[in-house]
């Protein structure tokens, strides 16, 4: 600070307000930033000025940002629809989705099918959700992807396995209320595609779980799971 820094005796500089307004820059700003991180009293003062001066921002005119800003945000966070990425970026995306890593039992062809379901989403559609259904012995048994835009559900068994004779597997979504609603039955040991009603789609969120039970041919006679649950997992956004 130079001699011109001394004003005519107005007292100690209001450092927190100076920091919030951005009146100082460079090293001085960095010093105040570190102080705000370490010094609770100073941080409280910064909070006071940020909340009180915030109203000055009302007169700033909104400006719509170009669409590529959102795409870049998604890329940085690893949440972009795969179709928007160049091929060489896909490995990075794959690795950034932490829960996909645990899916070692899913064969590469099934995994590719899973990515395919994400790949063809329209950019405007709500982001897809997925669930890894663990079997009762803790292994990854199925992967489920839910495209909330179209109501399409893809189910991929990690290892081929069929329901016992004269039985089927039934897929359930369990909401926050604990109620299980049937998404349909399947007998195939390969990938299965189903459609679920929009009304049910609206309830699909991160408080929902997906489960598979063994039911008599034709599905549960009661509308709720009656046989043993062979796999379950929580629905997650990707």
């Amino acid at each position, binding site marked *: 600070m130079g001699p011109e820094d001394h004003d005519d005796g*107005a007292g100690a500089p209001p450092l927190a307000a100076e920091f919030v307004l951005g009146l100082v820059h460079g090293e001085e700003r960095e010093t105040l930033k570190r102080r705000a991180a370490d010094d609770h009293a100073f941080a409280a003062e910064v909070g006071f000025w940020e909340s009180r001066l915030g*109203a000055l921002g009302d*007169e700033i005119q909104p400006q719509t940002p170009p669409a590529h*800003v959102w795409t870049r945000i998604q890329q940085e*966070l690893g949440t972009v629809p795969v179709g928007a990425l160049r091929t060489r970026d896909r490995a990075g995306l794959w690795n950034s989705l932490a829960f996909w890593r645990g899916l070692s039992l899913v064969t590469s062809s099934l995994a590719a099918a899973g990515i395919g379901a994400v790949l063809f989403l329209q950019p405007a559609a709500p982001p897809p959700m997925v669930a890894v259904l663990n079997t009762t012995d803790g292994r990854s048994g199925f992967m489920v992807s839910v495209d909330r835009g179209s109501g399409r559900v893809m189910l991929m068994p990690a290892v081929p396995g069929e329901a016992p004779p004269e039985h089927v597997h039934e897929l359930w979504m369990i909401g926050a209320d604990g109620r299980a609603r049937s998404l349909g039955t399947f007998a195939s040991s390969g990938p299965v595609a189903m459609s679920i009603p929009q009304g049910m789609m609206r309830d699909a969120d991160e408080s929902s779980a997906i489960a598979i039970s063994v039911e008599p041919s034709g599905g549960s006679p009661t509308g709720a799971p009656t046989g043993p649950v062979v796999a379950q997992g929580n629905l997650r956004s990707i």
Partner: protein
Amino acid sequence: MTAPSPAARALAELLQKIARGDQPALAELYSLTSAKLFGVCLRICEERSEAEEVLQETYVTVWRRAGTYDPAKAAAITWLAAVARNKALDRRRTGKVRQLSAPLEDAAMVVDSAPSAQSTLEDAQQRAGLMHCLDELDGNQRDSIRAAFLDGLTYEDLAHSRDVPLGTMKSWIRRGLQKLKGCLER
């Protein structure tokens, strides 16, 4: 605290969801707030491309730090704008004198500007309080504080813009801030 408006509560709820890793909530927050925050960035950044980068950084930070938002302390839009402002202020180049985006004389105070859609009743009270307190300041103090906030100008930039010695500008603003604090705390 007075009850926040439904729109303000919705933003606060979105931030809570984002803190739990809800990505659709981030997309919704972006659709509701990105135009406002881009406006903030454009006022402070010199280049449009730089403002775009700052906006990107802002939402990445929001994604990672949404859990630190405290609805008891500020409205969600105020917190978001503060994140954007701080990111933009961090980008300013040391030693480069910047200009006002508009002459101070043209930037007449809009005391009765319509509250933004996300404003809370409490915001309205804070705004009224701030405007009242700013009115108690001298014109030089008030205009300089407003320009610093809106355009992200430093003491040096402001002294240059107003063609006054740096010490004079510091004196205007520091005295203004002290008076403002006394008034806001009343």
